[in-house]
């Protein structure tokens, strides 16, 4: 099965839980990589179970879901999101890798039977391409 097809198929299987995946991934990121909390100093509560964190995880995962539909041209599809991250949010792109890792951990954790090595490599490649497209407008 072609890589992008693997991503789309797996995503179709798990998209019902995408909000849980997003919140869980973000929570893990804040706990396992505490330096990422620096981007959320404007939240009164940066604890992983806070309403802010949950909501943000859902927002981010919504972006990932959207990217799945644009998998054949991520650069064009994520242009405005890239501008947002480059000029407004200014998130160090190293953090994309960190969050991607957390997303993969959550997928393995929640879908142990479906997150096969083949799905894993396809998702890892997809998230890397997503991160690259997101960093496109940085410089």
């Amino acid at each position, binding site marked *: 099965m072609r890589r992008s097809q693997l991503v789309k198929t797996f995503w179709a299987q798990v998209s019902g839980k995408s909000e849980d995946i997003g919140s869980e991934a973000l*929570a*893990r990121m804040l*706990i*396992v990589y505490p330096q990422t909390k620096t981007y959320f100093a404007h939240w009164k509560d940066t604890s*992983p179970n806070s309403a802010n964190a949950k909501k943000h995880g859902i927002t981010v995962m919504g972006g990932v879901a959207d990217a799945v539909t644009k998998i054949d041209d991520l650069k064009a599809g994520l242009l405005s999101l890239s501008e947002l991250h480059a000029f407004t949010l200014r998130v160090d792109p190293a953090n994309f890798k960190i969050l991607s*890792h957390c997303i*993969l*951990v*959550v997928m*393995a*954790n929640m879908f*142990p039977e479906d*997150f096969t*090595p*083949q799905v*894993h*490599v396809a998702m*890892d490649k997809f998230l890397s391409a997503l991160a690259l497209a997101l960093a496109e407008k940085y410089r």
Partner: protein
Amino acid sequence: MVEWTEQERTTITNIFTNLNYEDVGPKALCRCLIVYPWTQRYFGAFGNLYNAEAIMSNPNIAAHGITVLHGLDRAVKNMDNIKATYAELSVLHSEKLHVDPDNFKLLSDCLTIVIAAKLGKDFTPETQATFQKFLAVVVSALGRQYH
């Protein structure tokens, strides 16, 4: 020196006490070879690695996965002195096996994901943080003797 809380020591000990080495070892190594195919460069003598199915049914890879996973036992037993504990293994990986130390991180990420799949609800964010901290210390120790 790395500081470990009582909670962290317990977490690590529990994971390894209840670990099915024969299952997790092969899974972790196979995943590494599939997800990061360039790591196959070190396994030219292991037989058929042509595709994911071949890798996952390769008995040499499975055996080696178990060996590598048991390599972590000495860290579990010597958590306060991981650096010294791995000095010899570090020299081996550098001088004899010529493994790029970047690969240690790749394998440890795959092991984290396999454990995440195995432990389900028990793999809490705190457990993940502790496990990744443990693996990071081992990875650092293994890269220490490279020059």
